[in-house]
């Protein structure tokens, strides 16, 4: 996706999220609130790498189509992890803005293969296949708006304080479903690549499976520092004592090419070693979290009474 389109889309998503929540709050004439939540979260993710534009080291001279040695992406196959903290501000009843600084580790694979054969004796050939595993670590700052739906409670309480707490989903035993959407900015911390090479030599007097070779190296220079995108998701939470435990699933859609275009061919181990050049790729992720948050004002302010 071109940069201008990326910018426009991101700004549109942010602006429309703000407008929608603003309109919803005004229409419902909601009670003003000013509750802070803080906590931590962790989980796993699966990654999809979408090539915007493909690049190759080999340029075939024998009429073979480039597709003969195209990269085959294996998406959503490698499990990554993430852990972070949550800072949430409920500025209108059940509507929060949340900032969630997160350390995220993403992994994805693609594969390539090449063959050479004796024109006069096609049985005499050499085949190589390469699996390229990319591992990226980002410090990400998702900024999202979240709407809570109070589903019900396992216990019963009475009084104004209890009603107010119930509306905010912070009463013991309350189930809360929520939807959230926003954008994120990721800062690259580390990028690594592991290439596994397998070969079969049928040109040296028999069929010989060559030793599997695995090489790993840092590719920080091949990846730009920034990764931005939009994120949306659903979750469910349960209030336990003063805290809320939640499970959520988000989909993140990267809006920019993360490959450093100027440095694409600068790593000779890849270009002349395994004939690889990174495509222009956008990252998308499905991520699942378990989070644990507590209301800050509930503890520190006299406005709320302890349960």
């Amino acid at each position, binding site marked *: 996706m071109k940069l201008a389109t990326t910018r426009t889309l991101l700004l549109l998503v942010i602006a429309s999220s*703000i407008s929608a929540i603003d309109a919803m709050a005004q229409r419902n004439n909601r009670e003003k609130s000013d509750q802070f939540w803080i906590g931590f979260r962790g989980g796993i993710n699966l990654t999809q790498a979408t090539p915007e534009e493909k690049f190759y080291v080999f340029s*075939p001279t024998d009429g073979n189509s480039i597709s003969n040695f195209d990269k085959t992406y294996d998406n959503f196959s490698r499990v990554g992890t993430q852990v972070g903290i949550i800072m949430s501000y409920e500025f209108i009843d059940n509507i929060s803005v949340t900032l969630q600084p997160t350390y995220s580790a993403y992994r994805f694979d693609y594969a390539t293969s090449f063959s050479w054969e004796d024109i006069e004796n096609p049985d005499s050939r050499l085949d190589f296949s390469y699996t390229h595993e990319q591992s990226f670590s980002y410090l990400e700052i998702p900024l999202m708006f979240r709407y809570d739906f109070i589903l019900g409670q396992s216990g019963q309480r009475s009084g104004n304080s209890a009603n107010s707490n119930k509306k905010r989903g912070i009463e013991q035993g309350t189930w809360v479903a929520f939807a959230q959407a926003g954008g994120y900015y990721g800062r690259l911390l580390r990028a690594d690549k592991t290439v596994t090479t397998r070969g079969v030599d049928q040109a040296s007097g028999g069929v010989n499976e060559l030793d599997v070779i695995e090489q790993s190296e840092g590719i920080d220079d091949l990846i730009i520092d920034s990764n931005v995108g939009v994120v949306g998701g659903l979750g469910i939470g349960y209030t336990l004592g003063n805290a809320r435990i939640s499970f959520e699933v988000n989909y993140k859609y990267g809006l920019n090419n993360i490959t450093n275009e100027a440095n694409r*061919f600068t790593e*000779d181990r890849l270009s002349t070693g*395994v004939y690889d050049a990174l495509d222009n790729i956008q990252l998308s992720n499905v991520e699942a979290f378990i989070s644990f948050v507590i209301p800050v004002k509930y503890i520190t302010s006299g406005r709320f009474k302890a349960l």
Partner: protein
Amino acid sequence: MFRKSIYILLSLSAFIYSCDIGDNEADPSDSFTRIFNNSDFGGAFRPLDIKQTSDSGFIVLGATNSAAAASNSFDRPYVLKADRFGEFEWARTADEPFVNPVSSLIEIGGEFFFVSMDEISLFAHLMKIDLETRRVFSDQTYANITYPLAASQSGKDNGFFIMGYDRNDLSTIMNRFNSDFSSAWNEPAEYSVFEDVEESIVSHLLRRQPLPFFTGELVDSDVLFFNGFRNFNFSFNFINASTGERIGGVNGIQDDSGISAATHLGGSDLALSRFSFGDNFILPRRDVNPLGNAESSDLGGNPFPELNDNANVVVKTLEINGSEYTLYATDTRSGQIILIAYDTSGQLIGTTFLGRINPVEIGNFITTGDGGLAVLGTVYVAGRFPRITIFKFSAEELNDILGI
């Protein structure tokens, strides 16, 4: 509160787009590595020279023993055209009986030529590369030059020089040609070797023991030079550009020691490299009197033990932003190309290694129209199949190579 949120978000968005995402756009023709691969198990492709074409693409002269070429013991001329992104456009292997193309590509009137040999008569042929019809054919036959071993173009009058070997007279022969392909001399100049070195020459042509044959000129005087056999030894010789008469030179020791590359810096200073019984020495600025006679072993130089025995060396001067630099490109024992940059005083200013895992070897290099550098080489894909490769560097990357 809500307006404040909007301001924060818009500020955050502005911050995001002021960073490296906005700068992450590069012309794919600025920098790339391209390997011209094919699935031919038995074919070997050896690059000799590269020039840029009017469409900013590249024309590559090489040699091949590909199975697609006729089966003979000598390599056949191989011409490859790539676009400005380094993507393959077309290639041609010259028809019989042409073999043994020699560096360099010669550009006259926007058309490209190179010198090759008739494998039957051993005559030199000036081969023309027709970019439009994608044909490679003999344009001129020079029957008075046999066993062509080197050729280069004059930077002064667009003419060219061809060096060969006369097996009957046991002489190295050299001739100078005008840009209209006519001979500038009445007849080729001969430099007697006084012994039969045909075996060494055939061994060179078969790549069993390559020797650094080359020709060139002094940029500010009427002097040419050639590196070849003379007077029993492999030697570097200065000759009068008007008559072909030898005026001086640097003697080697048979074919075990001598000069391996040279380019003129001005006055009597040259950038040289020399080989001596397998060892290699680089002399980034060395005073050599064209009218004198010296021994190559007396020239000294910086030893480079990391280079291959009697390494193939290419040396050229580059002018970047009004300053001159000398760039060497050669092959290391670790299977890499090393680029070694010097300033005009002969001070080392940078080294860069190219290639990893699979061995690579230098073919040639040129500066490109965008201020970058194109390095032509061989990469042994899968560790065994020699294929032509181009390493293209942007102007910024070339500055890094030169350490500026």
